[in-house]
């Protein structure tokens, strides 16, 4: 047996275990929230994935008091502006109704006239916290982020529930009667929960619904506790419910009422939603139909992350010179705990779908120890300084005095940061590839030669890169340069678990350059020419600068090639920055330098748009999309169907990158359709709760999802909440087999979370994978004029 149980855990009886089971299932009212230290995009109603998108509209979103789609008024505004074409709306009505007759105008008028009397759902005021919510939220802040708590609480010693019980039985803000009630509660959380439910008369059959309703009152903390239960395991949903129900009992408050959300007319919402999705989806498919061909005889081949932000860089780079590009999940197949040189601890630099399989540490290169020592020392001094500046905050009464004493020192610094606005910021993150210290990732200590060859083979075959190698191949990860931004990791690479992608790129390149790996790959049918050089780089998505790492190890006779490549990435980056600046609030037609400067401005709430407006995922050869301007709205995963007759690579792509792309798409979707419940609100009033998350203002629930500045501006939504169109260039049978066998793909496709299409028999035709088989996917004609007008 492994993993011994904590010795202090008393055995729970059958009654408590039954309640515990219901609490565990009730937690499915909301998905886990991963906090800010490594912000991972997730579908907030992920536990309901198997029930489908429709059920999320009618049940999963309303269960936490949220909307699952835009409101009737918002859809009508899009119709009025021309964003939704009347022809698209009519087509959508026809698809969903067997009795829809007449011309487009008549259909649309009749649909609009049938609107519910109270269209949509507008909240009149913020959800007011009950006394129980207020106390529970306060306890969660103190217990889940004790470093941010005003007073120390004995959570580490006693656990979440027992510490609350110990503190509350002496809490002077409770009456003697209330304190006695707390003291009478059992010592273990599941027994306490069972006890209170019994005292309150909640019978077995009602307990699951009751517990769901209770958790739905503070979905932010519930979601965060779920994540802690999955990771450190120091708190669980049973503890949270035990404290909540303990408070209900002690305060004599009523049990929570289900969240007040009007009934959803699901069919009507789906008609609107499909009409809303038609234009961006058709735009993607139209672009593909007219795309050019991929670059042959490339001077260099650059492998980017599938992230939509890479699409812009790839497009501009391909226009700049003879370069081929590929899209691949940005962890480049390296499922590892990565420990950068100056990091305090390793972090999982791979998708959360994966358990890290290796620990790979960064070491100084031979001869670089003195420089490495200085770099690590600078990091330690910086941390010590920050800690010293921050420590008075933790002492009661000290912050005011500290501000008086230190303000004259920190004031000029604040003025300089404001006036200079990021002009002088040097790289300070340990995983930044521009540290100036020569280092290596120690892959030999982490992977046996056999494992190195296995990993390399998976990388190359999944990318479809098995022959025709360019003289230079660069793995280009991505990360972001932004300051004073609590949501920074949400802008880093999701495939790297919310971290920068450079370490993974460097490990993958080192692997592919290793002689033992080259030999092993050749034995397995992948012969890489001896003069093919693998490099690692990183695309900074806030500045559009591409950095190539480990330049000092490029052979002398290859430096000119690399310099040419770097010069071309600079030109491509400049073009991309100008393109992005048009959409960034206040950037106007800013230069690339101006875009870079605003990314380091500590007052800038829009350093970049991240993955806003994402709308599709294309899985296929680059020839399918080369030359197309996809407006940074499309995840691009390369796939060569001819190199994958068994469908192994496609299965890998559909069960992992597709899932991650959906999570991201769903996070943006729900943060946009209900920013109050599924979004984090405006950054301007955020208060940090340790690394857990943010509050809007001084109290309340932990905010889920993305801040408003990731999805919208003062003028309204920038992101368009559309489901992901998934284009797969592969034979029908291969796709069908994977959809049938992989539950998660089945749920996504047949649950209508994504719209999966493949090319039809003729050019410009598409067919959709549905539960009823492949259906022609109609490209509604006749709306071009309206669309152009709207654009």
């Amino acid at each position: 047996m492994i993993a011994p149980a904590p010795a202090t855990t008393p055995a729970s009886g059958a009654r408590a275990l039954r309640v515990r089971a219901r609490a565990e299932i009730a937690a499915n009212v909301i998905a886990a929230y991963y906090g800010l230290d490594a912000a991972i995009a997730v579908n907030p109603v992920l536990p309901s994935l198997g029930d489908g998108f429709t059920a999320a509209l009618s049940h999963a979103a309303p269960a936490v008091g949220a909307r699952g789609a835009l409101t009737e008024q918002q859809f009508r505004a899009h119709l009025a502006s021309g964003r939704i074409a009347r022809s698209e709306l009519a087509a959508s009505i026809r698809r969903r109704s067997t009795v829809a007759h007449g011309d487009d105008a008549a259909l649309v008028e009749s649909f609009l006239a049938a609107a519910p009397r109270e269209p949509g759902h507008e909240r009149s005021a913020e959800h007011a916290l009950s006394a129980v919510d207020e106390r529970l939220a306060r306890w969660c802040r103190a217990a889940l982020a004790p470093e941010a708590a005003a007073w120390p609480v004995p959570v580490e010693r006693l656990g979440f529930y027992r510490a609350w019980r110990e503190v509350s039985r002496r809490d002077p803000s409770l009456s003697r009667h209330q304190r006695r009630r707390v003291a009478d509660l059992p010592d273990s959380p599941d027994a306490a929960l069972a006890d209170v439910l019994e005292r309150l008369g909640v019978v077995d059959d009602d307990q699951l619904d009751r517990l769901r309703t209770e958790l739905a009152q503070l979905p932010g903390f519930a979601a965060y506790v779920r994540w802690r239960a999955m990771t450190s395991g120091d708190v669980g949903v049973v503890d949270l419910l035990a404290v909540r129900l303990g408070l209900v009992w002690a305060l004599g408050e009523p049990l929570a009422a289900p969240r007040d959300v009007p009934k959803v007319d699901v069919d009507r919402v789906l008609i609107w939603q499909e009409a809303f999705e038609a234009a961006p989806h058709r735009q993607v498919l139209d672009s593909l139909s007219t795309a050019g061909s991929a670059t042959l005889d490339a001077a260099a081949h650059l492998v980017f992350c599938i992230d939509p932000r890479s699409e812009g860089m790839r497009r501009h780079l391909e226009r700049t010179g003879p370069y081929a590009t590929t899209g691949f999940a940005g962890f480049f197949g390296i499922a590892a705990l990565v420990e950068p040189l100056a990091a305090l601890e390793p972090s999982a630099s791979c998708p959360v779908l994966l358990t890290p399989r290796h620990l790979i540490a960064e070491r100084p290169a031979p001869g670089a120890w003195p420089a490495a020592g200085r770099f690590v020392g600078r990091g330690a001094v910086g941390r010590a300084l920050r800690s010293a500046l921050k420590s008075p905050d933790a002492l009661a009464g000290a912050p005011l005095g500290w501000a008086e004493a230190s303000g004259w020192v920190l004031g000029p610094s604040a003025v300089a940061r404001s006036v200079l606005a990021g002009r002088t910021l040097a790289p300070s993150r340990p995983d930044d590839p521009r540290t100036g210290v020569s280092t290596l990732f120690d892959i030999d200590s982490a992977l046996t030669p056999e494992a190195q060859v296995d990993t390399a083979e998976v990388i190359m075959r999944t990318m479809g890169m098995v022959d025709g190698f360019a003289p230079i191949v660069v793995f280009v990860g991505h990360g972001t340069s932004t300051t004073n931004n609590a949501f920074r990791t949400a802008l880093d690479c999701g495939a790297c678990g919310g971290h920068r992608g450079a370490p993974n790129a460097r490990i993958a390149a080192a692997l592919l350059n290793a002689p033992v790996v080259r030999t092993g790959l050749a034995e397995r049918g992948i012969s890489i020419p001896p003069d093919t050089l693998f490099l690692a780089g990183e695309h900074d998505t806030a500045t559009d600068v591409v950095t190539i790492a480990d330049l000092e190890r490029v052979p002398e006779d290859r430096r000119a090639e690399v310099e040419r490549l770097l010069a071309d990435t600079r030109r491509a980056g400049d073009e991309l920055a100008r393109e992005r600046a048009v959409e960034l609030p206040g950037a106007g037609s800013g230069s690339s330098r101006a875009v870079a400067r605003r990314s380091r401005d500590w007052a800038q709430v829009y350093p970049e748009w991240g993955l806003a407006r994402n709308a599709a995922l294309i899985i296929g050869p680059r020839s399918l999309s080369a030359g197309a301007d996809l407006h940074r709205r499309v995840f691009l995963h390369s796939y060569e169907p001819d190199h994958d007759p068994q469908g192994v690579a496609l299965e890998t792509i559909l069960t992992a990158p597709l899932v991650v792309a959906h999570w991201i798409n769903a996070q943006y979707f729900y943060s946009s359709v209900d920013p109050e419940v599924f979004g984090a609100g405006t950054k301007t009033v955020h208060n940090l709760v340790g690394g857990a998350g943010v509050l809007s203002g001084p109290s309340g629930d932990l905010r889920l999802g993305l801040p408003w500045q990731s999805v919208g501006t003062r003028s309204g939504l920038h992101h368009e909440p559309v489901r992901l169109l998934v284009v797969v260039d592969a034979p029908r049978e291969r796709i069908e087999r994977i959809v049938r066998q992989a539950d998660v793909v089945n749920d996504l496709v047949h649950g209508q979370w994504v719209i999966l299409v493949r090319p039809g028999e003729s050019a410009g035709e598409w067919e959709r994978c549905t539960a009823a088989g492949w259906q022609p996917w109609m490209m509604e004609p006749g709306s071009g004029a309206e669309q152009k007008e709207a654009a």
Partner: protein
Amino acid sequence: MSREALTKMTKIEVVARTVDADAVRRQIVAAGATGYTSLPAVTGLGHHGAHEGRQLFNDRDALTLIITVVPDDRADDLIEGLRSLLDLTAGVMFVSDTFVSRPHYFR
């Protein structure tokens, strides 16, 4: 070694979706079991058809087998707790008598 020299206990095995495996493990710990063994990415053929093992880049959407051994007097509560969990989610449970050589490990 004959069975007489061993101590009779109860072995409980649960096959659950990996996303639900944590809840199963917590249930086992809460019932007072001193440990468990967890086997990720198990494969097989069952009520819902064939289940492949771990996907190449996805450990999450797979099945996990969790095994624990408890003294007989602690078994019924745990079985009850696990049944309550499996009534509400996918998964199967097998309960059998077993014999162990180091009984103090499991008490």
